[in-house]
């Protein structure tokens, strides 16, 4: 039972990081697969609406292992949330918490603030910005960059690809600018 209690607590970075790193050799040794999740978004486009666009005309079925991989991630998210959930509220840095509270965030109980990410917000301005606009940037940006945190920051840096370092630095700069300049404006506007 103690093991379960331990698993239910939030896992520290020095446990989670190395486990994530092990995904790299696991995928390589299981079948010469490079770790990279954002390409699944492209496979979904290629499988559903290729629309005769050259970028979506390739053998996506050959890459379907990645769709199984992300289906696994969703299942893992289910298992961790409903079978191994942490009964305590999330503990975040007090400075982040006070900054966000000043911007109007009131719900600090779960992994995502209900102020922004609850289903009732889907058809509101909040949903349009935090779900639709944000999601569009994630999909457009990762594909334009040729990868995301997994493909560039983890797989790319692990295999010493310098373009991945450029991409990773760009992700961080974009995130820093957005968090510190755009996000306060957006939150003041909609919350």
């Amino acid at each position: 039972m103690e093991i379960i209690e331990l698993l239910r607590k939030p896992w520290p970075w020095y446990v989670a990081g190395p486990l994530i790193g092990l995904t790299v050799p696991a995928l390589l040794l299981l079948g010469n697969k490079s770790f990279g999740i954002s390409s699944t978004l492209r496979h979904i486009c290629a499988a559903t609406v290729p629309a005769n666009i050259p970028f979506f005309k390739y053998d996506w079925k050959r890459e379907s292992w990645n769709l199984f991989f992300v289906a696994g991630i969703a299942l893992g998210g289910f298992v961790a949330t409903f079978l191994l959930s942490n009964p305590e509220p999330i503990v975040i840095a007090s400075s982040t918490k006070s900054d966000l509270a000043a911007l109007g965030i009131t719900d600090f109980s779960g992994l995502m603030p209900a102020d922004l990410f609850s289903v009732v917000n889907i058809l509101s301005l909040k949903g349009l910005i935090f779900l639709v606009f944000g999601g569009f940037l994630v999909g457009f940006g990762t594909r334009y960059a040729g990868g995301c945190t997994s493909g560039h920051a983890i797989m790319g840096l692990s295999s010493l690809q310098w373009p991945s370092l450029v991409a990773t630095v760009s992700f961080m700069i974009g995130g820093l600018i957005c968090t510190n300049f755009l996000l306060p404006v957006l939150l003041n506007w909609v919350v």
Partner: protein
Amino acid sequence: MEKIRNTSAGNADNGNHALLPDDSLDGANQQRNSETFAGNFKYLIVGLLFGIVFVKAEIVSWFRIQEMFRFDSFHMFGVIGSAVAVGLISIWLIRKWKVTTISGEEVSIADKTFNKGQIYGGLLFGFGWAITGACPGPLYAQIGGGFLAVTVTLLSAIAGTWVYGWLRPRLPH
């Protein structure tokens, strides 16, 4: 060292890999033979374990991403940094000991070629990451974890990818 082929994704020696030559596909499949349907379940299991780590380490949390971009916590930097360190050592050992895949192939990793998209796209993704609190991997884990509103984020991300594919010939690279 030279035994390890570094091939570009797309122009691999097998003809059924019909990707554009200047294409930097992440998550490339460099295995010679296609996977069977049953064989793909290996990756579902790896994904399942990975998804559990994502949620339990709170990497899927919007709050954790906010902390990272405000430099208020070491957590996310520790996760990414130690993941890269373990990945780096693993690949180094695979190359040093010439470890093969379970079907006996030599391990091959596609080289990434630089283009300006890594800067422009990277900046745009950084904005999206800060707004949604998610990169593509956590989107799937959040949906599995019951944040059903994120389904909209995922659909919009797919739409963003589609629009990129459509505009690609006209974008600076």
